[in-house]
């Protein structure tokens, strides 16, 4: 009995991972269709890349300057470039808004389907005891008190976090340097 239990559980886990990878590619496909292939996005991206490179060069050249007046004028140039970069990034966010909505809707639908299919089912055993604030996610809708039983939600969230950003980076659609998928890791400026 335990053999068959683990057999189906392992296959469920693999299935969720494969669906998550497929969803990642689908999300990027939708983004490409709605945004990445448009001229406005490509021009904006080129402009952001160009401004980022100029900004890096300006910041590097400040270090080598000796006179205070030159440092001051270079500093103003850096500020202007930073403002320009910030405004381009804001415009980029608005341009991407269409795809955010479409991708969001798709992912919610797929998540809903998976959730209803795997509701109440243990899809994996965790090799560690989860912390109290994570056990609400890992043990969602599961019976029993064994906290190493893992529900679909946790696996799906982990897959989304790992595969989505890697697929974006692999396909060359990663957000430009200076913006991030995980802004909570950015130190306060």
């Amino acid at each position, binding site marked *: 009995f335990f053999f068959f239990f683990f057999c189906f559980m392992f296959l469920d*886990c693999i299935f969720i*991972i494969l669906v998550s990878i497929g969803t990642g590619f689908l999300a990027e496909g939708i983004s490409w269709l709605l945004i990445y292939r448009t001229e406005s996005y490509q021009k904006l991206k080129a402009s952001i890349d160009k401004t980022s490179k100029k900004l*890096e060069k300006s910041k590097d050249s400040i270090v080598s300057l000796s006179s205070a007046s030159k440092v001051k004028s270079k500093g103003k140039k850096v500020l202007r470039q930073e403002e320009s970069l910030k405004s381009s990034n804001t415009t980029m966010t608005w341009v991407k808004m269409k795809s955010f909505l479409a991708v969001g809707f798709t992912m919610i639908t797929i998540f809903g389907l998976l959730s209803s299919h795997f509701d109440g089912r243990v899809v*994996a055993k965790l090799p560690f*005891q989860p912390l109290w604030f994570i056990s609400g996610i890992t043990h969602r809708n599961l019976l029993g008190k064994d906290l190493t039983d*893992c529900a679909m939600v946790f696996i799906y969230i982990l897959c989304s976090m*790992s595969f989505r950003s890697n697929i974006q*980076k692999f396909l060359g659609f990663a957000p430009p340097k200076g913006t991030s998928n*995980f802004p909570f890791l950015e130190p306060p400026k």
Partner: protein
Amino acid sequence: MSQRPSKQANNLKEKTQNLETEEETSPLKALFKKVQTPKSQWTPTELSDAIHWMRQVIGIICGLIWGLIPITGFIGNFLFIGVNYTVVYLWYEKYQDIDEEEYGGRYDLFKEGLPSSIALFLISWIVSYNFRLEYLSF
């Protein structure tokens, strides 16, 4: 009749040239080659890409090993972060001889690719652990 062999030769030449061009311009291959070459010259973007992909590979390998041994308990997470940090640090500090201040500092290099690496590590740890439970225990 004499035209056919020269046409085939031309086609073969074109295909070889295309392959060579593809090999030259494949960014991941070029990056992989650069990672293996000691004391390479890095732009900030190239270095952050290299560190990102290294962290993902370390995440997958550590997850598979931790699951198959198996290493259980929360200590596995701390062990992974330690291994991940150490390997990448030794690579850019000793092997590539990079001054981390030139590329944004230690914190910037540390967080490059870290969240997705941790998630990938957890996935591969869970999968290999469950694989071991299913196939290696019965």
